[in-house]
């Protein structure tokens, strides 16, 4: 009972403080919009099928011309860092509220609105490309909205056998003869009951980006413009990749990138290697206050 009294007191105090700030002229919280632009270098990507003339073409460091027909990726575990260093997590343990699928074919998906971000000045953003292992289970009962957004079983943002979500899904074409490229990433990591044995790969990548100027949340709702440069896919900081078609153990264009075999090279290029590179393909284009 003593504890309960303490909690009530604590709650009252918190409520008192919260209601105090209600009286001030600036709101206690506002929205922050994350606006994603998917590019090849500085050119925004236009999707297209094999022979589409309007599709944005890119040439890799290895000299392979390529373009995309489909481009999707998952953003989750979003945290905003205030100028004093304190971290504001955005529903980081709830995929329904704090994760989204960026889909180049759906313009509205390119803007993800974070609601109720506390008033303050923010200098940095952190987010995950993919889904953290502890949340990465294809159990519809856990996060039904995100499960639906990821497309149930037909948009292939799920790895059924790995029982986790696909983190990135890229379909496209490469070389003059438009060979198919199909690059999917996702985690296969699993551990045994006692935690003595861990197997598989973790394709989740934590991204840290310094904002070009502080995002000021208060009477205004700022917008953070994030560029995802898919030139990195084949010509990244970690790996320079030459695509080859076939079903051999070293082929990587399609189809066995659907497995963990060649996948991690793409993962490191897109999301960084998790050590020296925590940006991968992402950069801040600007902040609109």
């Amino acid at each position, binding site marked *: 009972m003593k504890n309960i009294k303490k909690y009530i007191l604590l709650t009252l105090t918190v*409520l008192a403080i919260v209601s105090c700030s209600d009286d001030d002229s600036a709101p206690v919280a506002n929205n922050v919009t994350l606006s994603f632009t998917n590019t090849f270098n500085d050119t925004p990507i236009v999707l297209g099928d094999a022979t589409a003339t309007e599709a944005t073409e890119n040439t890799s460091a290895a000299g392979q011309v390529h373009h995309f027909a489909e481009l999707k990726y998952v953003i989750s575990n979003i945290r905003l860092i205030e100028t004093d260093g304190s971290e504001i997590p955005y529903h980081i343990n709830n995929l329904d509220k704090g994760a989204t699928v960026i889909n180049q074919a759906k313009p509205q998906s390119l803007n993800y609105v974070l609601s109720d971000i506390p008033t303050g000045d923010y200098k940095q953003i952190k987010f995950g490309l993919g889904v953290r292992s502890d949340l990465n289970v294809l159990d519809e*009962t856990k996060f039904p909205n995100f499960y639906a957004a990821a497309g149930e079983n037909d948009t292939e943002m799920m790895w059924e056998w790995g029982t986790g979500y696909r983190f990135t899904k890229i379909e496209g074409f490469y070389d003059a003869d438009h060979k198919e490229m199909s690059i999917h990433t996702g985690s296969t990591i699993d551990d045994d009951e006692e935690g003595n044995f861990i197997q598989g790969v973790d394709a989740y990548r934590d991204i840290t980006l310094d904002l070009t100027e502080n995002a000021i949340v208060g009477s205004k709702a700022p917008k953070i413009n994030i560029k995802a440069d898919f030139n990195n896919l084949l010509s990244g900081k970690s790996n320079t990749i030459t695509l080859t078609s076939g079903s051999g153990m070293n082929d990587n264009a399609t189809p066995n990138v659907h497995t963990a075999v060649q996948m991690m090279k793409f993962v490191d290029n897109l999301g960084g290697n998790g050590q020296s590179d925590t940006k991968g393909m992402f950069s801040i284009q600007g902040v609109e206050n």
Partner: protein
Amino acid sequence: MRNIFYLFIGVLFFSACSNDDYEKILPKNPALAVQIPENFPAVNAAYYTNTPTEFGVALGEKLFNDKRFSTDNSISCASCHIQSHAFADDKPRAIGVANREGIRNTPPIQNLAFMKFYNWDGSKLQLEKQAIVPIITHEEMDSSLSQVIAKISKDEDYTALFIKAFGDEEITSDRIYKSIAQYEYTLISANSKYDKVVRDKTETFTETEQQGYEVFQQKCASCHATALFTDQSFRNIGFPLNTNTNETGRARVTGNLEDYMSFRVPSLRNIAYTAPYGSFGQFNTLKEVLDYFDEGVLEADNLDPIFKENNNSIPLTEQEKEQLIAFMHTLSDAKFVSGK
């Protein structure tokens, strides 16, 4: 704000109450006496966190046989895991809803409590984490946990069983996984002629079986080891390759090229009931498998060292093949496959 405060107080009030005067008498759910064969290796540690109970197993068995687990209510777990085939089937690759064909041969469900890895590529390390795979896979049941729960929650038989097994009627994914695993833990096959000869010493091999046993120990037992007849390792033994573009064997899980086209060494128990053989049913008979070993397997960078050291083959005379097949038939557990 006030409302939230009242709600908060309200919640505290209720939770305080339930701590004090909630003492419901639950129906008894006794632990099931599972016979662990003395010649078997240790069980998976997950077993001890989910030991079979009478109603947990009854519930698991009912779920295992429920076709509502598939999106169109056409197949259950038992549609592919057929008891008379040691809970495998007779097809090269598993057939799911709408006659969709999977990429691999249906594995038998037997002695799973003693396994460290599940699925041919070992993608799951606890049985409780395995059941979701066929439920959501497009080529298998193509359903989802919410779909399944919505369908079975209207069924009063389940309400009763969930209360008996777990104390209340709530149907959750975790309870489904646990009860199916409990049922599967009870599927132990250890009553073959081999067990009666070697463990119980109540029967004897025929001369051909005995010769087969000797050839087996010399040429097969380094992989098909222990009383489970698998050392649970993953090996590329140069079998004809599955050209399905999603297949890379265990490498699909680990990402290591050394695991390319490697699969878990299959148990040979009840092997006579589980044709065809190979990860995608490449061989129709045991004789075909032995002929293939004798003639030579496919070369690969990561071909198992045992094959590499022996010119990529296991040389066998026709007589040795006959003897081996006779021995492998002593691993048949008629009681297990008949369910009596």
